C-alpha cells in the first residue's frame, strides 16, 4: 500500500489528543477496510487530529479530518498510518 520506511510506523491510535498528524498510508487488515476508510474521506497527505476518546480504552475516538469530524473505533484507526506535523 505504498508504505516503505525502516522504522516502525506510527498508527493513528498512538497519537495523543489534539496532536496534528499527516496521513502516510494504510495498513488495513482487509482491502475492504481500506476502501471503507478511503470512501469516508481518509487519504494520503490529509491532516488528521484526534479530538476525543471514549471512556474505556480510549475507544472509540473522534478525529478532525479537513472540515469534517469522524468517529471511528480503534480497530479502524490503527489501520491509518501517520506522521506528526508541526502546527
Amino acid at each position, binding site marked *: 500500500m505504498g508504505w516503505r520506511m525502516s522504522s516502525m510506523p506510527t498508527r493513528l491510535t498512538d497519537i495523543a489528543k489534539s496532536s496534528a498528524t499527516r496521513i502516510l498510508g494504510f495498513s488495513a487488515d482487509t482491502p475492504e477496510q481500506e476502501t471503507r476508510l478511503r470512501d469516508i474521506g481518509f487519504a494520503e497527505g490529509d491532516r488528521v487530529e484526534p479530538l476525543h476518546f471514549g471512556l474505556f480504552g480510549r475507544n472509540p475516538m*473522534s478525529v478532525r479530518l479537513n472540515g*469534517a*469530524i469522524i468517529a471511528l*473505533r480503534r*480497530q479502524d484507526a490503527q489501520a491509518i498510518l501517520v506522521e506528526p506535523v508541526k502546527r
Partner: protein
Amino acid sequence: MSDTQTLTRPVRLALLGAPNCGKTSLFNALTGGRAKVANYPGVTVEYRKGEFELPDGNKVELLDLPGVYGDTGKSMDERIAIDAVNGRLSGERAPDALLFMLDAAHIETHLHNVLQAKNYGLPVILVLNMMDMAARDGMSIDIPALEQELGIPVINCVAVRASGRAPLLDYLTDWTGDIDHGSAAIPKPEPGDIKALQQRARSATRMAVSRLEQVETLTHRIDKFVLHPVLGIVILLGILFVMFQAVYTWSGPAMDAIEGSIGWLQGIVSAIIPEGLMQSLIVDGMIAGVGAVLVFLPQIIILFAFILLLEASGYMARAAFLVDTIMAKAGLNGRAFIPLLSSFACAIPGVMAARTIEQERDRLTTIMIAPLMTCAARWPVYFLIIGAFIPEGRVGMFSQQGLVAFGLIIVGIVFAFIMAAIFKRTLARGESSGLLIELPSYKTPVFKDYLRGLYDRAMIFVNRAGRIILPASVAIWFLTTFPRNALSINETFAGMIGNVILPIFQPIGFNLEMTISLIPAMAAREVAVSSLATIYAVSGDAVEGQMSAVIASQWSMATGLAFLAWFVFAPQCLSTFAIIRKETNSWKWPIFAFSYLFVLAYLGSAVTYHTAVAFGLG
C-alpha cells in the same frame, strides 16, 4: 436553449451524495414532499420519487436516494442508491442525469466521490450545498476553478432557502432541455482506483478551495463538553432523564382537559341517543376505546418534542459515539445505535434503519432487538398502569411515576443488550466491525420543519386511533356485548374466547379482561388500553374517563406490575413482524422474534407477579 420549450417527457434526475449533506431537504423543498429530515447520517434508507415544476413550466422527476460513500454499495441502503443510479431497481427506469450533492464544508473529504460519479455514464452536475455555513467557517470556493478541475458544472446552493435554490433551478431550466434533446454533456470517465481519484480530488481542492487553518468552530467548542469521556455520559443520561420526567410532569393539565372533553362528549351522546345498543356502541365502544388512547396525546407530543430536537440538532451521532463502548461489549456494530434509537418512536423505521449496517449478521442482530426498545405505542399502556398503581408523589425532585417509566425503558434496553450478546455468540456469530460515522456540525433546527415534524408524529398517533383503535374497539364492544343475555363477561363471546387462552395467562397473574385485551393488541400495542376501556365501560364499571381508577380498584398491584412486565417485551404488533419479514426476506426471523419475545414476556411477567405476591402485593 430557447426559453419555453416543452419537454417531450419529464426528465428524471437523481440526487446522489454522501449521507447527511442535505439531499432530502432539497427534495422536500422542491417537490413539496414531507420526507423525514434530521441531522445525522443515515436518515434516508429508501429511495423516494417526487415531481416539481421548473420556472418555465416543465416537469422534472426527482429521485431522493440514501447517502453513499464511494461507489461499491457496502450496505443495503448504499446498494439501493447505486442500483437506482444504474437503473437496476425493479420497476424504476434509470435517471437521465445526476445531481451530485456535497456539503461544501466537507468538500475535501468527499470530492473523490464526485469523480466516481462521473463514471456512471450520465450527465452530472455538482451541487455544493450549505455554502452559507462553509463561508461562515472561513472557507472560500472558487467555483469556475472547480468546474475547470472537475470538468462538470458546479452550482452553489442553500437547499433550505428559496433564494439559495434559485441558481440551481435556473441552471436546471436549460440543462433539462439539453438532457431531453440528448445534448447534455456526459462527463469523461475518471480512470484509476480510489487512491488515484483521491489524489486527483486533492489536487482539485488545492486549486479551488481555501480555508482558514484549524478554525475553532462552535461545534468543536460544544463537543469539548458533549464528547468528554465522563461529562458526556452524565449529559446523555441527564437529557434522557429530563425527557422522561417532562413527559410526566408537563402533560397533566392537557391530559385532564382531554379526559374532561371525552367525558363531556359521552354525556352529550348519552343525552341525545336513547339508552340501548346504539348508545352503548358509541359511548362504551367507540368513545371509551378511542378516548382511552387519545388521552395520551400530550405525552406523545412531549416525548417527540425531545426526540426531534435531538435528531435535528446533531446530538444523535454524538450519543452513538458515547455509548459505542457498551455497544461493542454486546458485540453490536456502532452503527446499530441509530436504528435502535429510532425504535423508541416505532420499531418499523428502526428495523428499516438497520439497512445502514454493512455486516449482515450485525444487521440481523439489530433487527432482532429493535422491538425491545420502548416504542410510542407502549407508552399508553405504561401510563395507564403506572397511573393506577404508582402514587403521584416525588422522590427528591423527581416524579415517582416518571422514575418507574424510566426504569421500564432501562429494563428494555438492558434486555436488548443481553439478547444481542447471546445472538452474537450463537445465531449471528462473528466479529462486529466499525462505527465509522461522521459527526455532523450542530445546527439550530428550522422552527417550521421542527413543528411540522412534531405535527406529523402527533397525527400518526391520532390516525392510528382512527384506523386501528376505532375498528378494534367496535369489535371488542361487539364481543363483550353479545350474546345479549350474558350475565357476566364470562358468558360473552369475548369471555368465551378469553377463557380458552386464560389457562396460559392465569399462572402469571393475568385476569380475564387483560387476557382478552392481549388479542386485539396484536394489531397495535396501545389497543390493549382501548380494549380494556371498552370492556370496563360495557360492564358498567368505568366512570367516565377515569380508566386508572377502574384498573386500580379491579386489579391487584401484582397483576398490574405483571402486565407492565409483559409490555416491556410485548410480543405484539403484527406490523413489526411484517417489516422484519420484508427486511430479512424470510419467515425464519419474524417467527424467531415473536417466539423469543413471547418467552421473555411470559417469564418476565411470571417473575414479577410471583415476586410481588411474595411481598404481599397480591
